[in-house]
């Protein structure tokens, strides 16, 4: 029935602009149709065609809303939003340039102070992406918010790498920060799964995260000569054991539920 309703709505919505308002309305109607069909089936109506027709007639009149949506000029709301974004961006850039000039004149360190502009741009992009990810997650979307958060984490890592490298001049060591990018991305995935209460994803991400994080910690501490390579390879072995424990707990919990 879901497919049939979906196809019906796709036909009715054909030709409408692909705006958030239109897609939200389509999805809302689909939800309503599914509610109605479940209710009819629970009441004993088993004929699919009859259920389909009753459901469609229950939303009769929605075409008037579509007419309004069709006649809307391509959305002044979105133009206003874009103008606002450009304005905020300009103000932000002006502030950055102001801070850059002030710091440069005061310290005289022009060779490094340009980092303020670069890092400031990174921070701005990260904030934008995180806001859009939070909005996406709140409206139940998963893929785009995840991509936005991964991109934010990547930018933050790159920003950290550039900052540490240029300010401290330790290029031979600072590349290790980039080695941790997969760890940070996996950690983000764990946080998303926890926030959205997706237990299976939380489990899967944790199982992947633990050994990779352990391996990265081991490699970087070994390379930096904070720890010796032997016997600290045991860190990785411990991670595998921790993974085994997590898997066992998860399977047990699943079995108990059944």
């Amino acid at each position: 029935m879901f497919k049939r309703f979906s196809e019906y709505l796709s036909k009715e919505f054909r030709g409408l602009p692909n705006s958030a308002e239109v897609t939200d309305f389509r999805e809302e109607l689909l939800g309503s149709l599914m509610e109605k069909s479940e209710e009819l089936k629970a009441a004993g109506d088993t004929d699919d065609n009859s259920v389909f027709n009753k459901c469609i007639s229950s939303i009769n009149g929605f075409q008037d809303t579509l007419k309004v949506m069709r006649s809307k000029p391509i959305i002044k709301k979105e133009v206003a939003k874009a103008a606002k974004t450009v304005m905020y961006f300009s103000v932000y850039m002006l502030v950055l340039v102001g801070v850059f000039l002030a710091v440069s004149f005061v310290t005289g360190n022009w060779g490094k102070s340009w980092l303020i502009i670069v890092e400031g741009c990174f921070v701005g992009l990260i904030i934008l992406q995180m806001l859009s990810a939070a909005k996406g997650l709140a409206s139940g979307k998963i893929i785009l918010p995840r991509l936005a958060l991964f991109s934010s984490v990547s930018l933050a890592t790159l920003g950290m790498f550039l900052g540490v490298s240029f300010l401290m001049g330790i290029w031979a060591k600072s590349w290790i920060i980039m080695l941790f990018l997969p760890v940070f991305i996996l950690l983000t995935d764990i946080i998303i799964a926890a926030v959205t209460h997706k237990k299976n994803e939380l489990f899967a991400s944790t199982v992947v995260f633990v050994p990779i994080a352990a391996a990265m910690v081991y490699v970087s501490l070994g390379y930096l000569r904070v720890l010796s390579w032997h016997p600290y390879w045991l860190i990785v072995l411990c991670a595998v054991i921790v993974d085994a424990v997590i898997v066992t707990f998860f399977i047990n919990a699943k079995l108990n539920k059944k």
Partner: protein
Amino acid sequence: MAQNSDFLRGHTETIILRLLTEKDSYGYEISKNIVDSGQGLVDIKDATIYTAFRRMENDGLLATYWGDGVGGARRRYYAITEKGRRLYAEKKEEWTKLKSILDYLIIGSDKNV
């Protein structure tokens, strides 16, 4: 008595606001709630509800978020905003006055209105 959606004309938004002061809800539930409370005398088209939602959301009276629905579909939940609460309080007061005037005009009474 035949079902009649005219009873609600002009009050749909206030009714929706009132229902949302109790709890967040979604289109199908709100529509069902109105029809079920109407004792068979009131009918409302889903399309009317959805049109009202669009308008109220644009006016900042409602906020929305998605939740799980049935059969793979999602529910679009509506929550009343602070502005919506203020408007509801005004409309409620307006209705209380109007109700006594209508009582007087339709039923007739000695009491002052």
